[in-house]
C-alpha cells in the first residue's frame, strides 16, 4: 500500500538531487533545469498531501507554481541570451559584472 509518506520521501529525494545539481554545475541552463526538478518535487508534495487531506487548495497552488515557473523560464532564458550575447559564455562564474 502506497501512503503519503512514500510520495513525500520521493519528493525529498528529488529535491536533494536538484539541490546537488544547483550546487555542482556551472552551466546556467543546467542549473535552471535543476531548479525545475526542485519545483516539481514540491509540486508532487503539494498534490500528495492535498489528496491525503481531502482538500483541493494544494492543487490550485500547483497550478500557480506552474504559472510562475513558465514566467521564470521566459524571463530567465531571455536573461541568459542577453548575457551570452555580451560575454560569449554562460558559466555562472562569469556572472560577475555587478562586483565592485
Amino acid at each position, binding site marked *: 500500500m502506497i501512503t503519503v509518506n512514500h510520495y513525500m520521501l520521493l519528493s525529498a529525494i528529488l529535491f536533494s538531487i536538484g539541490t546537488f545539481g544547483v550546487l555542482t554545475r556551472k552551466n546556467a541552463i*543546467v542549473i535552471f533545469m535543476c531548479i525545475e*526538478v526542485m519545483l516539481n518535487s514540491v509540486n508532487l508534495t503539494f498534490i500528495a*498531501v492535498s489528496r491525503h487531506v481531502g482538500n483541493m487548495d494544494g492543487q490550485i497552488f500547483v497550478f500557480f507554481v506552474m504559472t510562475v515557473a513558465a514566467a521564470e523560464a521566459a524571463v530567465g532564458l531571455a536573461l541568459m541570451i542577453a548575457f551570452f550575447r555580451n560575454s560569449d559564455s*554562460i558559466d555562472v562564474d562569469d556572472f560577475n559584472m555587478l562586483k565592485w
Partner: protein
Amino acid sequence: MEAILFYLTATVAILSAFFVTKCRNPVNSALNLVTTFLCLAVFYVMLESPFMAAIQIMVYAGAIMVLIVFVIMLLNLGLTVKTRYSHGLATSGFLSALVLLITTYMVRAGEATGIGGDVTSEVISSYGHTELIGKAMFVDFLLPFEIASILLLVAIVGAVILSKREV
C-alpha cells in the same frame, strides 16, 4: 500492482533526475528532465489528479522544455569540460545529503493533520477532477488567477525587452 508501478516509476524518476545533474551535454540533461516530468505525470494520475497530469505534460514537458531546448540549440553550447573543484563537490554533496536528512526527519516526525476533508475518491469520480479544479479556481481563487494572468503578461513583455539587441 500499485506498489510495483510506484517503485518502478520512482526509480526511473530518481535516475533521470540524477542524470540531469550529471550529463555533460545540456541537451541530454534536457531530455532526462522530460523523462522526470513524465514520471511525475504518472504519479499525478496515481494520485487521482488527471487534470494536473495533463497540464504537467502540456506546460512542463511541452512548453517549458521546448523553450529550454530552443535556447540550448540557439546558444550552440558545447560539452562542459570544466568541473568544479573536488572539495566544492564534496561540500555540495554534504549539503544536499543534509537537506535530504532534514526533510526525511520532518516527514517522519509527524502525521499530516486534518484528515477527512470533503474531496474524497468518490467525489472525484462522480464530479470529475477538472470540474472540481475549475470550481475552486474560478470561485475561491479568482483574484489570484487574475494576478497570475498579469504576471504572465509582465513576463512576456520582459522577455521581449530583454532579448532585444538595443532597447
